[in-house]
């Protein structure tokens, strides 16, 4: 391959681009804020402010691609570049992110009733989030300390407040290129799925609506041992993990006072990434998994992932509020592909079978419970059923995509209309079981150095007693402005 020569196969790319009581609803409610309610005291003033902000941000958005400073040729000074690339023992960086959101509420949806039955009725919710994410590292010899933390301020009619979290903070030692040992809080993502990772045993679940979001890690001790070979087996990597769960340590991982052991074996075999993984311990049921990923051609990738969970306990609730516990093995799997067309459109498609998910009947029972509970509350003020439903919502019923069979499709087009660094996309998550779905168009612009603008909307379609049909919101709009900085350079 030549210097500066693209590997694009232009033989096939001749035209590259420069740069009941309830309504039956279509496009209804999405992504319920997972919070308890509180009274909205300044709604009118905030609404007015909100529209001002939206107008202002929209103006910024449309002005972004325009800056045209007449600069002729580039110039450079090698000594300046050499200063720029000088390595320092420490790093400090991060990003500041402003995210105004608005949710148009669906008064007839189960999750709206569950969240708002004891609150003032609203037509929409506005939320403003400011996040400062900072990361820093210090390297000395073969050791490195790294920390990543967030300060998150949310102004909202339902759950205002400030959170400070340390997402990662660990010490790693790299005695050689074959060995890396780490201890501390670390994000560890396993699996090849883009939207879901049934084999992600050591991490927190992704939000399929925004799978690339940075997540919080768990406190662990881990190592990577890598060995390369020539021949069809090119690489073997072994990753053992120890995850303790005690008071104040990984309390949300599972049952406390246990030490859990996990491991992953990675192989690059016949140009295919293959992983085998397990988790064993008493905090969570034991589980085993595997995944693979392979490029079929230079623009076509396939991947798959599966997991087997031993004796997992599932809690369901029926329409009368009776909770049933059952224990069974669960098998989950995912198949997916990534395909890039000649016109630079990327398709990511996945099918996900969630072995721990609810059936349509089980979800219908839950929605009926909310319905009956709401009727009882309205007629007699009795909250018993709704409180039971709320408790179950905080568990499995309220998680993203709680059911069994899903399809995911994301289509993105790089730099259309000659606008460099501009990427429009649309994402659809389809629930095969109840035929409801969400549709999220999005535009992303990264043309200004260290500045990123993302405008995203959410629509959903689904009839009564379906996953998306019963979401809290009808529609959603979100603007995310991010500014990245490097305090050392």
């Amino acid at each position, binding site marked *: *391959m*030549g*210097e*500066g*020569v*693209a*590997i694009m*196969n*232009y*033989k096939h790319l*001749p*035209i590259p681009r420069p*740069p009941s009581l309830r309504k039956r609803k279509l496009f209804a409610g999405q992504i319920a804020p997972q919070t308890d309610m509180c009274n909205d005291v300044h709604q009118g003033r905030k609404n007015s402010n909100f529209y001002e902000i939206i107008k202002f941000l929209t103006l910024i958005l449309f002005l972004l691609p325009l*800056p*045209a*400073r*007449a*600069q002729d040729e*580039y110039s*450079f000074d*090698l000594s300046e*570049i050499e200063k*720029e*690339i000088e390595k320092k023992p420490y790093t400090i960086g991060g*990003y500041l992110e402003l995210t105004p959101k608005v949710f148009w509420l669906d008064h007839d949806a189960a999750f709206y009733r569950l969240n708002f039955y004891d609150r003032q009725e609203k037509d929409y919710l506005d939320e403003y989030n400011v996040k400062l994410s900072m990361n820093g590292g210090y390297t000395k010899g073969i050791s490195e300390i790294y920390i990543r933390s967030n300060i998150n301020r949310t102004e909202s009619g339902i759950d205002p407040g400030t959170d400070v979290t340390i997402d990662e903070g660990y010490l790693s030692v*790299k005695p050689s*290129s074959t060995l*890396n040992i780490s201890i501390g809080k670390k994000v560890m993502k396993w699996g*090849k799925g883009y939207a879901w990772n049934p084999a992600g045993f050591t991490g927190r679940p992704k939000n399929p609506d925004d799978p*690339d979001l*940075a*997540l919080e890690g768990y406190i662990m001790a881990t190592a*990577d041992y*890598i*060995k*390369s070979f020539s021949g069809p087996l*090119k*690489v073997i*990597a072994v*990753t053992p993990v120890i995850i303790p769960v005690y008071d104040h340590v990984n309390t949300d991982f599972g049952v406390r006072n246990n030490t859990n052991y996990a491991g992953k074996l*990675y192989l*690059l075999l016949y*140009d295919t*990434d293959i992983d085998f993984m397990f988790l064993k311990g008493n905090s969570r049921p034991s589980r085993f998994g595997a995944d693979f*990923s*392979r*490029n079929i051609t*230079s*623009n*076509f990738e396939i991947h798959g992932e599966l997991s087997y969970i031993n004796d997992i306990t599932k809690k369901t609730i029926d329409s009368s509020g009776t909770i049933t516990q059952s224990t069974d093995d669960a098998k989950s799997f995912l198949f997916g592909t*990534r395909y*890039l067309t000649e016109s630079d459109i990327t398709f990511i498609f996945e099918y996900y079978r969630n072995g721990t998910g609810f059936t349509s009947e089980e979800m219908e029972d839950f929605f009926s419970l909310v319905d009956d509970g709401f009727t009882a509350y309205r007629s007699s003020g009795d909250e018993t059923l709704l409180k039971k439903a709320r408790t179950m919502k905080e568990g499995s019923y309220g998680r993203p995509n709680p059911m069994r069979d899903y399809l995911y499709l994301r289509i993105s087009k*790089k*730099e259309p209309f000659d606008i460099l*660094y501009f990427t429009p996309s649309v994402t659809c998550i389809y629930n095969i079981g109840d035929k409801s779905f969400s549709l999220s168009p999005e535009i992303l612009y990264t*043309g200004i*150095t*260290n500045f990123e603008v993302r405008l995203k909307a959410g629509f959903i379609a689904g009839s009564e007693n379906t996953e998306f049909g019963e979401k809290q919101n009808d529609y959603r709009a979100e603007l995310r402005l991010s500014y990245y*900085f*490097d305090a050392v350079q």
Partner: protein
Amino acid sequence: MRKIIIALLIVFMATPALAVDGNSLLLQIDRNLNPDSYEAYKKLINIEPNGKKKEFVLFTVKKGKDKVAAMFLSPASEKGRSTLRLGENMWLYIPNVGKPIRITSLQSVVGGVFNNSDILRLDYTSEYNVEKVEDMGGQYILHLKAKAKTIAYDKLKMWAQKENLVPLKLECLTEASMLVKTIYYKDVKDFGDGIVRPAVIETDSPLYKGYKSVMIFAKMKARELDDEVFTMTFMPNLDSLR
């Protein structure tokens, strides 16, 4: 008869120029461009028709014919991203995403004219055979043909300086000889340890009218590297090589 003999003599005298071993010549050009195993820094500049620029700085390492990796040092929005190429396998690691993902070679991680293979370049000889060499006096013109259908450009036409065997210009062509991209090698610089090569590479394309991309090399030096550096598991740790 005498005319025939003279004609034959002219043909035979001309033969030595045609007898240049093109593939050996290309290998020599490869070695003059970079050592077999090395580290370097690259600054990429995308220049739009209105003069607007976007710059990226990368640290890159390469070993042998099929192993190359790079990590973005700036801008801050890209810092820590790394890419790995092992033959035709490519991966991208984004710190926020937290795990390497397999990517196709047709994608671009920086936007603009550069794509993944501009960053993860392999030797010419690993992907092309020399079909013909023309001796133009002070320059050679090498006509290269892709070894496989999966390779980006079916043909390359390379102008190389005879004196120092470094490229001056490269035209990237489709199978139907349509020009896709022209690359200009400029500013030959002594990087030390016998590495004397162009420090600047400019790229333009009739398909990207008015756009230009520039790659500036700095601190290139030969370096012995472990094979394990070129693995998916090592990607988040590339910075430890600096």
